[in-house]
Structure formats: structure tokens, C-alpha cells
């Protein structure tokens, strides 16, 4: 049984987006983690369509989203406006923020307490 909250990783680089879940899965086997990396043609950039797919394919209905740079946030927000799912977006350092959230979700920590811990990792 997967956890109530899932995680979505968005990066400009397909390999970065693909790689981070591997790190998180080590500590969060029961958290659904999906990712969106690069443009539709797998070039460097981000894609609102790919982000939508990452939202939809995530097993959870409530999501915590983490991203790398500027346009990733804009495309995330566009995808959030199109999605039915409840998505929370965090302006934290990507790897550290996502890792912290994964660890705490696996340990059934409440979202408000997770968010408090993420606050310290906010850099954007």
C-alpha cells in the first residue's frame, strides 16, 4: 500500500529527473515517485505536458513537487492549473528537499511538519 502523498521531480535534464528517484527510493519504498525531465523531444528544458503525465502516472492523489530552475517552476504551475490532483510546490534545493520529503513521508510524518522542515531548505 503506497502512501497518501506522492513525489514528483522536475528537471531540465532527462537524466537528472530520472536519477533522483533512485536516490529517494532507497529511503521511501512506499512513496510513489514520478518524474518529468527535458522537453518533449528530450532536449534540455521542461515540458508542461511531461509534468502532467508525471502527475497522472503517480499513484497518489496528493503530490509534493520539486524542481531545479526557473522555467521548471512555470511549467509546473501550468500543469498544476490543468491537473485535478492536489499539488504542493516547494522552492527548496531539489535533491535535499525531495530527499527530506521522501524520508519523512515514509515515516508517516504529517505534511505540516514536513513543510516546516522543508522551509529551512528553501533557496528560490
Amino acid at each position, binding site marked *: 500500500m503506497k502512501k497518501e502523498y506522492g513525489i514528483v521531480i522536475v528537471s531540465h535534464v532527462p537524466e537528472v529527473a530520472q536519477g533522483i528517484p533512485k536516490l529517494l527510493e532507497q529511503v521511501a519504498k512506499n512513496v510513489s515517485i514520478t518524474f518529468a525531465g527535458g522537453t518533449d523531444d528530450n*532536449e534540455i*528544458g521542461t*515540458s*508542461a505536458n511531461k509534468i502532467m503525465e508525471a502527475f497522472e502516472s503517480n499513484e497518489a492523489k496528493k503530490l509534493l513537487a520539486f524542481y531545479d530552475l526557473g*522555467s521548471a517552476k*512555470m*511549467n509546473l*504551475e501550468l500543469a498544476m492549473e490543468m491537473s485535478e490532483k492536489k499539488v504542493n510546490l516547494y522552492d527548496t534545493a531539489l535533491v535535499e528537499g525531495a530527499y527530506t520529503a521522501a524520508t519523512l513521508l515514509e515515516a508517516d510524518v504529517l505534511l505540516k511538519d514536513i513543510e516546516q522542515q522543508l522551509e529551512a531548505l528553501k533557496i528560490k
Partner: protein
Amino acid sequence: MLTVEIVNKWMELFYEKISEKKAYLSELDTPIGDGDHGNNMMRGMQGVKDGLEKLENPDLKETFKAIAMALISKVGGAAGPLYGTAFLEMAKNCEESQAPADLFRYALDGIKKRGGASVGDKTLVDVWTPVVDNLGKDELVVEVVQKAAEGTKNLVAKKGRASYLGERSAGHLDPGAVSSCYLFESFIEAGGIK
């Protein structure tokens, strides 16, 4: 008043300008960004051209929406969601008013909300803002647009990839401001303010 015909002509002219200037736009983006603005905009405008060709007897709303969706899905860089949002806002509001002064105001508000930039941050907002202000006073001419784009040269970037350079971003034109300049030159040439 904007019509489907004018918007099609506008996009055709913008496509041509981007084709001509894509190397220059990427060159502008190299010292203060990731060097791909020209190629990104070209990919986006190719998408716009293909998207508009597929429409059959579209109304203004469908036309704006097709432009927005092509830019959002094809551009890749920050320009995609920003220009895409601008056209999406025009699609949302074009039943209420077809006046460019109104529609560009909605578009500008959308861009500011999406990117969080204000005037003086060295972004396309520095071109869109005087365009909207001058349209409101019926004083929009090409020189106003060009001067606004040139004005980004001495600014220090507060938003976008150039902001990572801090003070070092001054002395370079903002690529997004320059592509916006082409957008409004095309708009004027297409007869948008007649």
C-alpha cells in the same frame, strides 16, 4: 480590433522574423543565459504555424488557444510558459474585448504572475509594459518597442537564468525582450493597431 485574419498575419510575420534572427537571439542568450533562445523560439513558432494550419474556420479564441498550446508544448525554455500564458490570457478574454490594449494588458498580467517579474528585472516585462501603456494612449510605434528592448541592456537581471550572473548581467540585451520586440514589430506590421 483584432481579428483572426490579423492574428494569422501577425504570426506569419513573427515566424519570419524568428527564422531570420534565431542565430542572433541565441547569440544574445549565450553570455547571460543558456544560449538556446533563438532555437527555442523557432521550434515554438514552427509549432504555431503547424497548429494554425490545422484549424478549420477558427474563431479568435480558438486561434489564440492554438498559439498558446503550441508555444507551451514546443518552446522548452522559460519563454514557452511565458509567451504561452500571454496567448492563453488573450484566448480567455477575447470574447469580452478584441481591443489590443485590453488583451495585451491581460497577457502582461499573466506573464507577470507566471514569472514573478516586475519592470526593471531585465525580462520581457520591460518591453510588454511600455507597449501596453502606449497602446492605451494610442501612441504605439515601432520606435517605442525598440527603445524598450534596448533599455534592458544596462539593467541587472533579477529574474531568469541571467539573474545567476548578478551584476555581470548588465551590458547585455535581454533575449526575451528582443524576441518580444520582434513580436510587437510584427504586430504593428500586420496592421494590429489600425
